[in-house]
């Protein structure tokens, strides 16, 4: 029971006003583990992963990330966030910065890496996500899939220990989804600890060790991708799966 994972939820609750958006969440993510979170809209998936880097604050329970307890005065949140990459559904690239500047901004100003070194690393990362030729492009000049790949490179530029993804492909046109998923698979295969909110089952089957199913703020079911997709245990997960499978 004292074993600590990379991310450790212990009896976490959160309210928005009267709405109990997270109910008694207990969940531990091991280093190098990839966990996929799914569930119907409004079930609290985004809230769950936003709590991990403190974009949302929890009301009670404990949340320990990389050995540091959130909400503890001794925890330096800004510092902790540099260890956690977050990929948004809507990319949130800085529109006034080029792709390369997006990638190097935080390394230069937060990590205090010398500019030349950061730019060198930035170019390599952009090459890695297949955008070597878009280094000087502004976000408005990139397609959705390209923007999301820049966003992933932007996170990797901080050399994080954990990467969180909030529906990274759901704002994309279907033909761009795979280019982003391929990058995510590559990141996972390098041993990154990842929590990914997504309904992409192909991705889950390929790299996830575990699928967590949420409904109405609670974790209803959790298991290996095979168990979950082939033999869902609850009525709610069966209903959910039948809906996303139909698409």
């Amino acid at each position, binding site marked *: 029971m004292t074993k600590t994972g990379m991310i450790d939820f212990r009896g976490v609750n959160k309210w928005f006003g009267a709405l109990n958006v997270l109910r008694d969440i207990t969940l531990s993510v091991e280093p190098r583990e990839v966990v996929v979170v799914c569930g119907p809209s409004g079930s609290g998936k985004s809230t769950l992963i936003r709590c991990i*880097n403190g974009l949302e604050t929890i009301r009670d329970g404990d949340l320990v990330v990389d050995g540091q307890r959130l909400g503890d005065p001794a925890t330096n949140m800004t510092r902790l966030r540099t260890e956690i990459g977050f990929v948004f559904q809507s990319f949130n690239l800085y529109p*006034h910065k080029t792709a390369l500047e997006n990638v190097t901004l*935080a390394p230069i100003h937060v990590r205090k890496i010398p500019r030349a070194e950061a730019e060198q690393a930035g170019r390599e990362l952009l090459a890695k996500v297949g955008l070597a030729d878009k280094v000087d492009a502004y976000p408005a000049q990139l397609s959705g899939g390209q923007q999301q790949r820049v966003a992933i490179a932007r996170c990797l530029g901080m050399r994080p220990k954990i990467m969180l993804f909030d529906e990274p492909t759901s704002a994309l046109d279907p033909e761009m989804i795979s280019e982003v998923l391929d990058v995510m698979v590559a990141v996972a295969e390098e041993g990154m600890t990842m929590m990914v909110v997504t309904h992409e089952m192909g991705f889950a089957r390929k790299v996830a060790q575990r699928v967590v199913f949420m409904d109405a703020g609670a974790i209803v079911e959790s298991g290996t991708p095979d168990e979950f997709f082939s033999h869902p245990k609850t009525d709610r997960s069966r209903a959910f799966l039948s809906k996303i499978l139909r698409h």
Partner: protein
Amino acid sequence: MLENFSFRTIVEYLPLFGQGLVTTVWLSLISFAGALAVGIVLSAMNLQRGWLFRVPAKAYIDAVRATPLLAQLYFLYFGLPRLGFVLPELVVGILALSLNSGAYVAEIIRAGILSIPRGQVEAGVASGMTYVQRMRLVILPQAFKVTIPPLLGQAIVLVKDSALLSLISVAELTRAGQLLASDRFMPAEGFITIAAFYLLLYYCLKGLAALSGRWLGLQPARSST
């Protein structure tokens, strides 16, 4: 009737109009610079979380917006000497314009900052930036772009507002028109001429606003660092 409209008198008074125009332009420029300074300070106060700075800034902005510039001008003009500051009319006028426009500039800056999508703040937070870093690297460079056109709009308002300084006998453009009107009893010549000069300034600033809008819209902003 206007059939004896005298262009000769206008030409005769042209040096006076020229001086008035020049005065209007430079006193507007100084006042606008002052307004920017006042506006930046006010909006910085307004963005604080604590009430200590926020409440006075808001009160000031509301007080300025809910009262006429002319009353504010008289407040300073008749009031400052009471406090022992006997200043030239021109200085009082510039002060009034700066303090007045500053409140509007503060609102423009605030709207610019609020127009930046929440996701931008979150992206900054998520990559471990401090509040100051987020402001400096992410929010302000974007907000700056958004505020340029409305700031030029405020500059137009300021130039027109500066006409009120003629009422405390600052020798600017409108005053020149008043002189012609009263010296020679030629109000038409006086006021139509200065109206034309104001229109000239208006179209210059309006053109600039259009240009800046097009420039900002088409060309992605260069990194400002």
